[in-house]
């Protein structure tokens, strides 16, 4: 079995299994922990619980203006790499072809130029994030190995992906064989590494974010406070 067949076959199956089962285990392990009902009477006029939770999730999308520049800078940088990564992952034509092969779903691709810009912006913003993680004393106090591993594991698929982009996606897709099997296999393997790491590190915030903010929304909307 050559490397590409391995990456497209067993490695993909195993990494997807770890991703799905690991994430479910992680979520269940947290969400099934004991729950303490709030028996205090709600503030008069408090919204329905679900609405309070939803509002808190919504508020988390952008910092309050009172918190000024610091919050804004890091939020914007966060959005750049989240959106950049999402665009590249879901919008690049060869990725869509790959997803179609695996799960049978597809959608229109974005132009290559948009992809190159999105990938470039993601890389710059990830480098900025790393710079501030290494230099900012606050981040120095609170960072741990998970942050560094996750950072590396997120940037690797972008870098290895750039390495296989030698021609327009239309040309890549028009061929029925892969002309750079090893770089492509490595690219795929880095994605699989990300899937395997996902349930164990901070990438889980992609799922936990909603519950974490929602729980705070429940607690405080009950008291008549919008968080």
């Amino acid at each position, binding site marked *: 079995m050559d490397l590409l067949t391995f990456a497209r076959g067993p490695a993909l199956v195993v990494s997807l299994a770890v991703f799905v089962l690991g994430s479910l285990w992680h979520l269940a392990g947290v969400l099934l*922990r004991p729950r303490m009902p709030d*028996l205090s009477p709600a503030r008069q006029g408090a919204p329905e619980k679900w609405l309070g939770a939803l509002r808190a999730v919504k508020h988390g999308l952008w910092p309050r203006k009172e*918190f000024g520049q610091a919050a804004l800078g890091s939020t914007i940088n966060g959005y750049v790499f989240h959106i950049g990564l999402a665009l590249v992952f879901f919008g690049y034509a060869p990725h869509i072809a790959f997803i179609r092969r695996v799960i049978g779903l597809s959608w229109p691709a974005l132009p290559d130029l948009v992809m190159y810009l999105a990938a470039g912006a993601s890389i710059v913003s990830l480098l900025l994030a790393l710079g501030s993680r290494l230099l900012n004393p606050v981040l120095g106090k609170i960072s741990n190995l998970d942050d560094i591993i996750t950072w590396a594991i997120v940037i690797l698929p972008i870098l290895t992906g750039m390495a296989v982009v030698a021609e327009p996606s239309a040309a890549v897709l028009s061929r029925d064989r892969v002309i750079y099997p090893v770089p492509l296999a490595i690219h795929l393997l880095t994605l699989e590494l990300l899937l395997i790491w996902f349930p164990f590190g*901070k990438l889980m915030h992609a799922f936990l974010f909603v519950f974490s903010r929602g729980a705070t929304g429940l607690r405080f909307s009950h008291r008549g406070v919008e968080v």
Partner: protein
Amino acid sequence: MIASDPAIPAFDKQDGQSDEARVEAAMRSFVSEFGVTTALHLESCVRCGLCAEACHFYVTTGDAKYTPVYKLEPFRRAYFREASPFAPLVRALGLVKKPGIVDLEQWQELIYDSCTMCGRCTLICPMGIDIAELVKEARHGMFKAGLLPDRLALMDRTARQWGSTATPGEDLPDILAEAGRSYGVDIPCDLDSADILVTAASAELSEHTKALADAAKILNRIGVKWTMHQGGFDASNIGFNNGDMELQERLTRALIDTAVRIGAKTVILPECGHAYGAARWEAAKWYGQALPVRIIHMTEFLDELIASGRIRVNRIGETATFHDPCQIVRRGGLEAAARRVLAALGFELIELKDHGVTGYCCGGGGGVVSNQRATTLRHKVFEMKQQQIEATGAKRFVTSCGQCRITFEMGARHAHWDKPTESLLELVADNLAG
């Protein structure tokens, strides 16, 4: 060592437990706290550091150790080792270090001296993590380990004995009689039956006794049957601040049981933030069921009396600014009530730069006001608050929490600042119309 003043030891120890026993006690307590919301909040931190920008202790010192989420480090580590979904793996591979006695000792300063449990950091956190609540839960473990500041431990012992940090219950009738005489008002005590049970904050039983008379003046005016009572009189729940859950439950039950015994339907809480946190939102947890009485803060009570026309107040007609007590506003939901009372008093309100739910803490909440080790830190926060207050140009400065008031008074004394911190209750009582 992480003490802000190297001359002062960064931690105190109570009782004679061995170090191993302390660590075990703390860990057992930490683990018992890991319910679903706590787990979610410990899991979802992305270490972005934004919470530092919201915390008055970081903002005024620039010291990274005051980053809110860092204050939780031993608690966080306990979670990942003992309760997270991959805990066995974490332990087997030694991925997270078990908190040891040195960690707990060193974190005492961060958990007690430099967190007022004000909750401002929650508002900036993209994950909405309720750090104040997590710090409170971490304090439960620190208390069990006998690792809290001595000053707070002393107050705890007093409250365990007296049911109050200020005075034993037997002395209440004398204190009320004296306050009544001084201010010319009748303050009922220990009635067998009443519709309303009125409670006090510790400071009102010693230095701020006028507040007792002020409440009495208003309650007597509306003609209800009310009383204060030796059975449950001090609502500033020191157990809530210290992490002493047994005491918190005992003090809470004293209020509710006394109210039930005398047939009261309402318990009025004093102008005290932590009393509100402990009784309004947590009493039912200790009671084990929905409470048979309504618990209401003095500010809410004044607001309702004015809105319903049961009392009227004279208009003062000056400019004023208002400090929002964290437990009453950001964590309690009474932002609008205080402002309605101020408006009724005819104040032209000039808001602080940071006000309402995003207002900065006074720097003394969560027991920090009583913790002499934190004096330097408190003064730094005071400087910032003083600047914000002065920047409004308002003539009067008002708040609705006695603890905040004491914190401001202490800060003002240190800074030789002559602006008095006024109580909303006192302003209403002094300006009752007709």
